[in-house]
């Protein structure tokens, strides 16, 4: 390479570097809008009817879910929430089938997905929902199924541990240990029904788990609320536009 070539290459590099310049950046808060999945403009009222619920007998997922969704809809949607007794869809299905009432009322009829499948037919029963809709002047009906089950898992987990060496310097080390975890799984399916026709408008399933170290005594109800907290934005986004807050980096 001649000196002249080197000079040209050098000036090219400088020009490119100057063009690149120093980068300035700005962190900015953003609110990304997530549009509602369902057009609810034909409805002024919403009825959280009740759920096919089962799993753990430590809580009543039907009553808790209906109560929680009603209070969330009251504060976070424009629809008027109808106050009504929470339906027990399990009893309703049993009644339709002519099944005998359960001897031990503490034991839930639905314990697994398989049990649930036998009851799910009611969610597609147009006549049933249309009749219920007529009782409440054709609202949007929210129903579905909730399975709240106990889970336990074992495995290796890693955590960072600090140690101090002889010179007094702190060191971080990854320590792996075998642990037994216990907790709960929540699998709801929210179904939205047109109270005027009894037809399903939209349905969405979720699944969340919360695991705790063995010995950590977490009440079932607080675990239920912890799990529902994660699902609520997804549920509310069906009926109203939600905003996801975050930050992005603007660059000059």
């Amino acid at each position, binding site marked *: 390479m001649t000196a002249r070539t080197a000079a*040209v290459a050098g000036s090219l590099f400088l020009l490119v570097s100057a063009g690149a310049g120093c980068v300035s*950046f*700005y962190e900015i808060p*953003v609110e990304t809008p997530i549009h509602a999945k369902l057009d609810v403009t034909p409805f002024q009222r919403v009825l959280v009817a009740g759920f096919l619920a089962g799993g753990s007998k430590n809580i009543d997922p039907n009553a808790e879910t209906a109560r929680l969704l009603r209070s969330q809809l009251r504060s976070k949607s424009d629809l008027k929430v109808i106050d009504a007794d929470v339906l027990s869809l399990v009893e309703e299905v049993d009644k339709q089938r002519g099944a005998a009432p359960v001897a031990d009322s503490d034991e839930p009829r639905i314990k697994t997905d398989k049990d649930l499948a036998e009851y799910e037919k009611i969610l597609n029963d147009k006549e049933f929902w249309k009749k219920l809709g007529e009782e409440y002047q054709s609202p949007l009906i929210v129903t579905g199924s909730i399975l709240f089950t106990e889970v336990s898992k074992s495995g290796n987990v890693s955590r960072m541990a600090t140690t101090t060496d002889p010179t007094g310097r702190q060191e971080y080390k990854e320590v792996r240990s075998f642990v037994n975890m216990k907790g709960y799984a929540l699998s709801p399916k929210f179904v939205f029904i047109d109270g005027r026709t009894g037809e399903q408008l939209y349905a969405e399933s979720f699944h969340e788990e919360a695991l705790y170290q063995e010995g950590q005594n977490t009440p079932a109800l607080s675990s239920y609320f912890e799990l529902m907290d994660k699902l609520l934005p997804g549920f509310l986004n069906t009926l109203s536009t939600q905003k996801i807050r975050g930050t*992005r980096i603007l660059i*000059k």
Partner: protein
Amino acid sequence: MRTRLLLVTALLIGLTVPALADRRDDAKAQVSFGIDVAQKGLWKEATQRWLMAVKIDPTYAAAWNNLGIGYEQLGQFNEARDAYEKAVALEPNNNFIRNNYDLFREIYDRQNRRRSR
């Protein structure tokens, strides 16, 4: 012969680089103004500015990145995806752009999964 070739190359660089620099300066002015108004919450105006910037200089990755953010904030997800993808293609090793794109994709993919249900 080699000297002549070098002279021609230098002349071409001499002519094109200032033009490119001018374009980049104009685009930078738009980007800068866009950032100022975005910081005041005027996202529509900001997005327009960044759109102008990428029209002036389509190789300006920062402008595409900001345009992606603007469209995302306005809920125009497909346009945001295109803008981010152009930014990533222009500067694949820029971590700021990559992080913005990854955060956006999380929301975009979730929204699309729901629509397909």
